[in-house]
C-alpha cells in the first residue's frame, strides 16, 4: 500500500540539504510509528522516495514523497503523528492514497512553479519590464556548461507561464528529468539584458508546486488522488 505525502519547508531549515532532509524524515516516520515497509537485508531501509530534491536555500510550499506501508490501519491519524515528530519549519500538509500501479513520485514530475522576491529595489523596479521583454521575445537563449560542452537552450520552450505582481516573480517551468530548468537560469535570461547578475542571496526563492502531466495537462502531483487524513 502506497501513500503520497505532501509537505512544506520554511525558515532556517531551508539550509538543510536534500539528503539530510530525507534522513530526518525517515527518523520522523519511524518515531511517529507509521507502519512503513522496509527493504530486506542487513541494513534494512524504508521504502521511501522524494519527488524532487530541494536545493539548499530554497523554501517550498508543496513538496511530495511516496512511502509504502504494510498497513493502512489508523491512516487518518498519520498526518498528525508525523507532524508531532517534525522539526520547526517542516510540515506535513496531506496524505493521499496512491494506487498500486501509479507512477512513483520522482518519475511523475514534469513541471514546477516558483515564486521569487528580490531584496534590492533596483531589480524589483525593472522586474515588470524584464518580464514584458521576456514575454514578447520569440527566443531567449540560455547557455549551460555540461560535460560535453555548452548546451544552448531557448528558455521560452522551458517556461510555460510567467508573471509579475508587485515585485514578485512567479513562473512555471519544465522540471522533467531530461529538461529541468533551474530558476537561476531563468533569472539570468531575464536580467542579463539589463546588465544585472543576481547572487543566490539577493532573492528569496520558494517552490510553490510540483506537477505531473495527465492528458497533456500539468496538474499537481496530488491531483486525482484521494486524501486519507482528517480535515
Amino acid at each position, binding site marked *: 500500500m502506497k501513500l503520497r505525502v505532501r509537505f512544506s519547508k*520554511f*525558515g*532556517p*531549515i531551508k*539550509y*538543510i*540539504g536534500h539528503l*539530510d*532532509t530525507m*534522513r*530526518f524524515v*525517515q*527518523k*520522523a*516516520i*519511524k*518515531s*511517529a510509528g507509521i507502519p512503513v515497509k*522496509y527493504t530486506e537485508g*542487513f*541494513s*534494512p*531501509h524504508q521504502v521511501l522516495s522524494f519527488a524532487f530534491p530541494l536545493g*539548499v*536555500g530554497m523554501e517550498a510550499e508543496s513538496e511530495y514523497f511516496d512511502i509504502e506501508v504494510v498497513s493502512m490501519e489508523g491512516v487518518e491519524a498519520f498526518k498528525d503523528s508525523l507532524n508531532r*515528530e*517534525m*522539526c*520547526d*519549519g517542516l510540515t506535513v500538509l496531506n496524505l493521499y492514497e496512491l494506487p498500486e500501479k501509479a507512477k512513483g513520485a520522482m518519475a511523475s514530475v514534469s513541471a514546477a512553479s516558483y515564486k521569487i522576491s528580490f531584496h534590492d529595489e533596483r531589480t524589483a523596479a525593472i522586474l515588470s519590464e524584464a518580464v514584458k521583454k521576456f514575454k514578447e521575445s520569440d527566443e531567449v537563449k540560455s547557455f549551460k556548461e555540461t560535460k560535453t560542452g555548452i548546451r544552448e537552450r531557448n528558455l521560452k520552450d522551458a517556461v510555460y507561464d510567467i508573471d509579475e505582481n508587485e515585485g514578485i516573480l512567479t513562473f512555471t517551468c519544465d522540471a522533467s528529468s531530461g529538461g529541468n530548468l533551474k530558476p537561476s537560469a531563468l533569472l539570468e535570461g531575464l536580467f542579463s539584458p539589463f546588465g544585472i547578475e543576481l*547572487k*543566490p*542571496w539577493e532573492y528569496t526563492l520558494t517552490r510553490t508546486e510540483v506537477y505531473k502531466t495527465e492528458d497533456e495537462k500539468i496538474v499537481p502531483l496530488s491531483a486525482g488522488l484521494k486524501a486519507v487524513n482528517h480535515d
Partner: protein
Amino acid sequence: MRKLALNDEILLTIDKPARYIGGEKNSVMKDKTDIAVRFVMCFPDLYEIGMSHLGIQILYGMFNSYEDTWCERVYSPGMDLDRIMREKKIPLFALESQDPVKDFDFLGITLQYEMCYTNILQILDLSGIPFSAKDRTWDDPVVIGGGPCSYNPEPIAEFFDLFYIGEGETQYRNLLDLYKEDRAKGVSREEFLHHAALIPGIYVPCMYEVSYKNDGTVASFEPIYEDIPKTVKKQIVKDLSESFYPTRPVLPFIKATQDRLVLEIMRGCIRGCRFCQAGQLYRPIRERSLETLKQYAKELIANTGHEEICLSSLSSSDYTELEELLLFLIDECEAKKINISLPSLRIDQFSLDVMNKVQDVKKSSLTFAPEAGSQRLRNVINKGLTEEDILSGAKLAFEGGWNKVKLYFMLGLPTETEEDIKGIGLLCNEICKTYFETVPKEKRNGQKIQVTASTSFFIPKPFTAFQWAQMYTESDFREKAYQTRLGIMETLNQRSIKYNWHDTDVSVLEGVFARGDRKISGVIRYAYESGCIFDAWNETFRYDLWLKAFEDNGISIDFYTTRKREDDEIFPWDFIDIGVSKSFLLREWHNALMEKVSPNCRMQCQGCGAASYGVGLYCP
C-alpha cells in the same frame, strides 16, 4: 520564526550551514525573559564532532530540566566561517537563541582531548571574552571547564574561571544556586569565585598559588585563603540508575561523526591497565540496572526514530548483565529495524553469536587490543589479554566465517625493547597461521585473511601508574614505527598484514599538555596567536609553529616529556583527589617495572582508594 545570527549571503557561501542554524529536533527553546541563568555548553571542535558527545547531551538535558535555566550549545566554527566572523566582526553565538555567547551567564567548555586547547582560545576570541580569567568582569560569562582534561587543568588554568572536577550530574545545581544568590546580592566576581571554590569539586585556579623549585618542578601548591580546601575532590554519581539520562537527545540534521543513540551502561572499569587514564579517573565501578537500561532504550528509540543504537562504557564485556541486555536489544531492535552497533567485546562464543545476529560477517572485522607485542610487556602494562586468548578467540571467529582482524598496539611503552616490537609482527603472523590451520582451503571461498595492525604512541597521562614514565622523543617514535614495519615484513604471512601508524609530532605535544603545568599557558596563547588552531586536524596542524612557540617562550618540551620523574615529585595535578591514591599508583608503577601483574577489581581489591566513595560494585 527564529532569526539567525548569520545572513543568507554567509550561510549560502560556507560549508555545511546546518552546523550553525540550530533548530534540531529535541533542541530546547525557552523564553529568555523568565530565565534566571543562561548557560552555553561548548565542545571546542566542529559541530559534527561535538554532537557525537554524550556528556554534553547529559548536561544539556539536565540543565534544561531546571525551570530557571536555559542551556544552549556552541561549537567551533569551521575555518571558512571563522575567517568571515573575524572580517565582519560577527560575535560567536549560541545555536538555540542565536544570541552572542558573551551575553550568557556561563560558558561551559568540555575538554575531551588536549589537542583542542587552541580552539578554546578561538571560542573566547570570537566571543569577545578576554583570554585570561583575571581580565574578565561581570560583562563576561563565567568560563567553566570539565571533562577528562580537567584532571590536569594547569596548562589551561589561566583561561578558566572554574573547573568542575568530576561527574556533572552532582554539583551543578549548587553552583547555579550560588550564582543566582550572589548576583542578587551584587557581590563582586572575585567574591563569587571565592564562594564557588567552597563547593565540593569546584576548582578555582586564581584561588591557588604555585611555587616552583629551581629544577622547574612544583615546590608547593597552596590556596590563597584559609577557608579554601587544599585538595579538590572528584564528584561522582552514587546511583547511576537514579541520575539524569538524556532520553530525548538533540538530533543533528547533518551526520554526526558518531551518528547513533548511546546507551551508557556503566562507569568505571575493573581492569587496571597501567597506561589507561579513564580506567582510573572513573573509578569506582558503577552499573546502571538492566531494567533502567531497557526503559531508556525504549524511550530513546521512540523519541528519536534513530536507526542505530550502541552501548557505551569502558569495558562492556564486564557489565554483569550484558547477556540479558543484548538479548533484549536484539529483540527490540529487530522488530523496529534498528541496527545495533556493538562495542568492542571480548571475543568468545557468546559475543560471536551476537555479532553474527547483528552484523554482516563478510563485512565486519574483529578487534583485539593487545596493546603490546609480547607477554612480558603486556604484564608491564597489566593488560590481562594473553596470546592464547587472542588466538583462541580468532580461531572461533574464523570458524564462524570472519576473516578480517584488527589489532591495536602502543609503541614506546615503559621498558619496551626491540623484542617487544618484533612481537607485534610475530603475533600478527600467528593469527594468519591460525586462519590457515582453521579454515581449509576449500572453505575459504576465494577469501583471504586480512590482519590490520595499528600502532599509536604511548603518552603518559596523569593519574595513571605511568605518570612517572619517561616519554620517548619524536625520532625514537619514528624509529619504533620503522622497526615495527620491518618486523612485520620479515614474517611469513606479511602479505596478509597491513600496518598503520599514528603521526609522531601530535603525540609529542599531547605529551606536553597531558603532564604540563601553568608555565605552558603562555605557549598555548602564543601558538594560537601565531596561527595554530584545530590541532586535532591533520590539515590545520602546524608543528613548525608549535615548535617555534616553545622556543620563543623559552619552554623546554623535554622537561615535560622525556625527563625522568622521581617517585616523590609533586605533580601539578596532585591537588586533585580522584579517590585513587598516589601511593597506589606508585605501587603499580613499581609493579610495572617488576613485570608484575595485578588482579582486577572483581578478582581481588587492590586498595586503590576509590572505595572511599562507598558505592563501588566490587569495593569492600
